């Protein structure tokens, strides 16, 4: 018996270099193109490619002063903000209904709410385009907002729903028992419990909306969002200015996603 046990080697003894190099390969495949893009944005060369010729911040300066890009950034921010607000508010209400009430067709509603996240953007885009033209609505940034709500809502709903489901009913009952009216129960007990999930849901919805292209292509009017503008420029005049903008977008998205994860984790730890 003892001999047999000593023959079993601990996992650490497996060849670590194999694991490390394989991991590097996978991560390299995933992230190297992004690193190249970041490098190009600092490259002192007017074409969108390597080799590296020296460090400059010119492309960032140009991007900052570009009126079209400024306009597009503003459009993107306002679309993302509106879509986030709508999606989060609707998601919160839907999650609340599904968690705290019993009603006919609840499971179907839950599935229907999650479905849009599985739909390819191109399907959502075409469907909504057809729908809006049937309604004789002019395409504009407002229609883009509605398109973004379609995939923002499931994200918000899912995040808030899974948190709200963990909420112990006895806490709401205790608050009511001690004299709190339903609205106070929500403000004093339920909201503190789900706040972090709501914020994290909003940040996710914002990020998704901010760099969305496919649905936006179908639903936008004359105004361009930032990803659309970048896409448009790539086809005509390719400059490192684009790389600079992309790097900034990457940075902002990264910060937001990390922040949303951090807030969600902190909320779970507290609850």
């Amino acid at each position, binding site marked *: 018996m003892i001999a047999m046990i000593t023959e079993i080697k601990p996992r650490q003894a497996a060849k670590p270099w194999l694991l490390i190099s394989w991991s590097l390969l996978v991560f390299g495949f995933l992230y190297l193109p992004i690193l190249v893009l970041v490098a190009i944005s600092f490259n002192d060369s007017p074409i969108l490619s390597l080799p590296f010729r020296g460090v400059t911040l010119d492309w960032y300066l140009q991007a900052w002063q570009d009126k079209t890009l400024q306009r597009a950034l503003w459009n993107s921010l306002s679309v993302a903000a509106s879509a986030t607000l709508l999606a989060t508010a609707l998601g919160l209400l839907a999650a609340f209904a599904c968690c705290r009430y019993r009603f006919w067709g609840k499971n179907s509603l839950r599935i229907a709410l999650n479905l849009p996240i599985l739909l390819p953007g191109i399907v959502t885009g075409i469907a909504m385009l057809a729908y809006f033209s049937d309604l004789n609505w002019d395409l504009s940034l407002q229609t883009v907002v509605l398109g973004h709500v379609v995939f923002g809502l499931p994200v918000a709903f899912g995040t808030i729903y899974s948190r709200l489901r963990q909420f112990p009913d006895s806490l709401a009952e205790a*608050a009511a*028992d001690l004299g*709190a009216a339903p609205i106070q129960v929500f403000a004093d007990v339920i909201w503190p419990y789900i706040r972090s999930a709501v914020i994290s849901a909003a940040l996710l919805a914002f990020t998704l909306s901010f760099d969305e292209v496919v649905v936006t292509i179908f639903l936008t009017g004359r105004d361009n969002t930032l990803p659309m503008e970048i896409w448009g420029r790539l086809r005509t005049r390719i400059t490192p200015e684009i790389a600079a903008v992309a790097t900034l977008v990457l940075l902002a998205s990264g910060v937001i996603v990390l922040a949303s994860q951090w807030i969600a984790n902190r909320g779970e730890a507290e609850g």
Partner: protein
Amino acid sequence: MMDSPDSLVYLDGVSKLYATPQGLLPAVRQVTLDVRAGEFYSLLGSSGSGKTTTLRLIGGFEIPDSGRVMLGGEDVTQLPPHRRNLHTVFQNYALFPHLNVAQNIAYPLKIAQLPSAEIKLRVEAALEMFRITGLGERRPAQLSGGQQQRVALARALIGRPKVLLLDEPLSALDAKIREEVRQELRELQRQTNLTFIYVTHDQEEALALSDRVAVMQQGRVEQVGSPREIYDCPASLFVAQFIGKANFLTGRVLQTDPLTVMVQNLPIRASAMGYQPQLDETVTLMIRPEQLQIAESQPDAAPTAVQAATQAAAQLSVNQLSGRVIGDTYVGQLLQVQIETALGRLTATVLGKASLSSEVNLTWLVSACTVIPPALATMPSP
């Protein structure tokens, strides 16, 4: 039914159905209860007996399907919990995790919009009263079970409700501190003179704490009475079995005055205190183990004239039976003895010793031999 004048909480034929995969099932059926002001009232029953649902109906967390809930003479059947002047100590305490101890206790006062100076004073007094001074800044997660329980009690009492509802408040505590907290609860109730409605599945707890106990089973109230009434004169076989240990003998009534029951081929005299049976009726008799006296029989010693006379006199109020000791269990201080008799196996609780296989004489007072009322065969279902 009439609302008795000094009743504070009154349930009038209350029923509650629950939706289950098997269809609608009654959780509480036609329950009528009447809790007086200042009373320590327990709802006792096993799980599924409807005791917690009954408490939730009083608290307003459930609305009955039929019947009325009265609180202080006012019909509160449709009132939501926050409009009822009673507070609850929940089984898991339900302390707000994001608030510290002082904020938890202050919550009902904050809701009532009391001036913050008064809130501060009253919270401090409560912390002191429940011996948790110094824990005010802590979060509930940082407290022991016993401390959490005190915070829950303080929070429920600080708003000075008319009635305190307690849902198995001791079940989450270690056995050792449970007894300690039990004493404190009883003292607290006496000091404050508040009405406590206490849900428990622990019959010992209910007997030790309560002024009155309602024993529940399958959504119905089987019996309401003082702990002594319930123990000595159970209203049904279920109550007799649920509360404490008991020996049961079944037989037919041979004679009604004095009440004599033929158990197998032995006439046993019984007390008709709780229930007056008819001639020839089949009844169940209950004898508590501590009411059985045992003595080693001495077959060779012939009774003297005086002894015989005493025995004859005693026989009017005492039953006798012989048996053999077949087992014993030491339960600290007392000994539980199993005795094989002509009427089956009986259990006696005695101080002292009993040697295995010894022949013994069993005696018990006629007054300690209670007739259990038969189950009511036809109860109207709600």
